[in-house]
């Protein structure tokens, strides 16, 4: 069975090989474990890009394979980040508070420690009480469970409501966008319990691992992201191949016909929607400790639309296309907006790419949609000379 799965999907092997070579190369060039050609911040950028690739793969499955243009997957990504961020922030603050309280003459009580942590974390929003949603934040295990459960349950409930009432097409896209907007607006409030506009910060400091230094920790997260991407790729390759893959693609091409053939379309869609949301949550949980900060602006609807843009540019309906699109556009975007691209003097006007990059992205996106619907991944068809 395993053999035939690989046989049917030779691209999985090629992808895993490329990912392994890339990871090995980065490791050799890293400061912590190799010759030190790459800075720690660049390793973090690469690690974050791998996480973005993972959520792009998830997006590709739900959109490119199942035909659901979800404009809400970045919300699940953010929820995963918030879930892990709560533990990171709690545990890290606990270390600091316990250390400072232990210097006092009288040893602290449990309540004093918790009050101290509360004041530290929620002082910025004028509170010191722990909201109910932080009930599990002291435990890494439970919070890791939250990384999976919170996006999963939200996707399950939302998807069940939406698919049950046969909301499809652009209606569904707008509904998912509304969900994302509602979530972002909710988190922007100071009394949401997640520090409102300030978000969660200091996530790059992993509790108990301070002695290792950021160079080492960044490599750990890079490996974790690479492993997660590899595992996610194999998982989705397995989901989209075989009989189930055929049904999912059938739903994309003509939902009614699949329903008339006797398949329970809603269950398949709900399964795909929820599974990809869970993977998005995991990707977020790996991304934000590398980014160091998460705030509600991260999950604004525009982020989810960009996700769709990456997948479209990379090439829908092929998993490696999503990876290429996410890596290519996000790295290119940080190169252009970071001032890396040289300005173009036109004599009467100088094109500053920090100002014009979004114009270029928008226009090239229209061009890709119009002229290269298969995206960058479509180029492989010419190389391999395989029928699409």
């Amino acid at each position, binding site marked *: 069975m395993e053999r035939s799965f690989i046989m049917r999907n030779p691209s999985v092997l090629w992808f895993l090989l490329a990912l392994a070579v890339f990871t090995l190369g980065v490791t050799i060039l890293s400061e912590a474990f190799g010759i030190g050609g790459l800075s720690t911040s660049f390793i973090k950028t690469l690690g974050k890009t791998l996480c973005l690739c993972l959520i792009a793969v998830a997006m590709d499955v739900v959109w490119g394979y199942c035909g659901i243009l979800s404009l809400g997957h970045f919300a699940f990504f953010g929820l995963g980040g918030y879930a892990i961020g709560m533990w990171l922030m709690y545990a890290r603050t606990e270390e600091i508070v316990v250390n400072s309280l232990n210097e006092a003459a009288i040893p*602290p009580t449990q309540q004093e420690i918790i009050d101290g942590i509360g004041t530290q974390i929620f002082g910025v929003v004028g509170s010191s009480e722990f909201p109910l949603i932080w009930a599990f934040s002291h435990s890494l295990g439970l919070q890791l469970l939250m990384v999976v459960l919170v996006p999963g349950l939200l996707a399950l409930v939302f998807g069940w409501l939406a698919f049950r009432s046969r909301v499809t097409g*652009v209606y569904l896209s707008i509904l998912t966008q509304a969900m994302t907007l509602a979530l972002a607006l909710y988190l922007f409030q100071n009394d949401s319990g997640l520090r409102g506009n300030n978000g969660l910060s200091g996530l790059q400091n992993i509790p108990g691992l301070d002695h290792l230094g950021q160079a080492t920790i960044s490599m750990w997260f890079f490996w974790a992201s690479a492993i997660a991407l590899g595992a996610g790729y194999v998982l989705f390759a397995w989901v989209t191949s075989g009989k189930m893959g055929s049904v999912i693609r059938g739903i994309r091409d003509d939902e009614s016909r699949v329903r008339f053939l006797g398949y329970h379309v809603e269950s398949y869609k709900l399964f795909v929607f929820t599974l990809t949301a869970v993977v998005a949550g995991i990707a977020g949980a790996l991304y934000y400790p590398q980014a160091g900060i998460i705030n509600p602006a991260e999950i604004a609807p525009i982020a989810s639309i960009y996700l769709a843009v990456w997948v*479209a540019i990379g090439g829908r309906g092929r998993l490696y296309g999503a990876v290429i699109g996410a890596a290519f556009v996000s790295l290119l975007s940080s190169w252009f907006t970071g001032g890396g691209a040289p300005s173009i003097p036109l004599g009467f006007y100088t094109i500053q790419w920090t100002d014009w990059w979004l114009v270029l992205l928008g226009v090239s996106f229209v061009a890709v949609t119009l002229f290269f*619907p298969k995206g960058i991944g479509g180029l492989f068809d010419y190389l391999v000379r395989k029928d699409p």
Partner: protein
Amino acid sequence: MRFLALLFAAAISLGVSGAQAQPTDLKAVLEVHAEQIERPKRLQVGEVVNDLIALGTPEVTEFLQRWQNRELHMREADGQFFYVGEGTPIELIDVVSGQVVGTAQDSELKQLRPNAGVRRVLGSALVQFQLSDPNILRRVAAVDSIARRPQADQLAPLLASIPDEPDAALKERKERLAGLLTARFDETTDARVAAIEALSGELSLDVQAVMNQILATRDQVAVALPEDENIAEIYEVGADLGTVEAYAQLVSAELAPAVIPNDAIRNALAANIDGGFVGGVPVAQLNTDAARATAYTALAEAGTVPPLVTDADISSAVQSHVFYAIYTEPDVAVTDAANDALNEITTRVGMNQALDLTLDGLSLASIYFLAAIGLAITFGVMGVINMAHGEFIMMGAYTGYVVQLFIPDYTLSILVALPLAFAITFGAGVAMERLVIRWLYHRPLETLLATFGISIALQQLAKNIFGTQARPLTSPGWLDGAWVMNDVVSISYIRIAIFILALIFLGLLLFILNKTRLGLEVRAVTQNPGMAASMGINPDRINMLTFGLGSGIAGIAGVAIGLYAKVTSEMGADYIVQSFMTVVVGGVGNVWGTLAGASLIGFLQKGIEWFNPANTLAAQTYMILFIILFIQFRPKGIVALKGRAAGD
């Protein structure tokens, strides 16, 4: 030199006193009270003021005012009082005649600076003069000043000035103000109750303030309820008042010892560490509240710290007292009347707030209608979602801004901007339809993404051209201000104008869609493009025109929105999600549907904001959640197309 100057000044002063050989009454009063005027005390100055008032001459008003404003000066040499004029040496002005009567050096004069208490006494004395001053502006100012800071002693002069008031409007104001003052300060209960009942028909803020002042309460605590107090409310501990707050009241009434806070316990323990032990408990074990309490009790028994107040102490202390609020107003009849009046006022205010909310909702609904109707038309006819619709709104608003740069007359510029915005966004919409959208008719999801690409490009372009700061789009002067019905209900003229604009477009669209050839063709294409094409309608042309029309209306909506909101490159994005919601809730391809959707969303948003006014973010969140749930029950919107046209 100095000697000469002194001599000169002395000569002048001699001359002055010579010139005024017969002192007027004011002069006489001033002479009698010279010391009180020079160094007035708040408690004694009343005597002087009474004597001055008794004179009742016009110059007394002037004198009191100047004195209050610290403009009165005394010549040190002879204790005479003057006002001073310009120049060096300073001109001396006589307090009676108002004429310049001499000059003096700065050093010879002493400026009189009565303190705040004295000035208040002077001010209230002045009021009665000002209330019957021949100059109406002074009288209005006096009424204003009473309305700002009402005081008991103003009531009598105010009432006295009413019968002689010549100006009808001011007389009415005075009567109203007298009513407010009577309700608060009159000496007889009957007069106050009557005044309060007369006020219960009003809903203005100052009447509410008066009622609330009469009904001001003070929390009290006692062992038993007192008989002679006007009790407002008796608190039930646990229901109306928490045990902790109740005990805090006991502490502040000095009926119970203060609770020792945890910090104080810890500090006390830390201060009494004795060889690794506190009160017999090892320091290392003091990490629970129970252990700390044990150690602290041991210290308290030794007498080194005040005893601990336990929970049992607190609850028994709280149970043995009654907690209640009394009115600061002792008269029961007055507070009862005020309570009744306030209830009536609250009901009326509530009704007026409902009316105000309706107006707000109507105004928001008309904005959403304008923003969404273009989207609804294109979505209905072509099944295409235009993510760049918000950017067309932005283009319309910037068109208005640019027009105002060239045409400084705001009325004219708005009249030019409206059709120009329509023309520009119509052109942009047609161009977009020809270049991009018509290639994607069979791929609706990709239209969404392609138009999104156009949206971010347009937004960034606008940012590059106009900068990131907000640009003003000024409304013409006749749209400034608001239509104020009363203290509660008001609506700005701009919002009324937008409402009228929305009505015009509603009518215009209904006319175009139902009465013209174009409308017929548009409806045909909406219902069944294939059939329409076989009947000789060119769907391509219809699509192009519809898209242009939808975009053009977005441009006009942009001018309207720009009039009351800031014009920025991101303004379109602020409206796009609400516009989508409006279309989705209302139902596609139907003007009435959009109207219903816009009304629902507008009223809903205002309604939720009313429940939770401090938190507009929460209001938007709940609204979106409501819409998500609403879609469950009417997936095709409020007004759904019937039959085969509904399609999928």
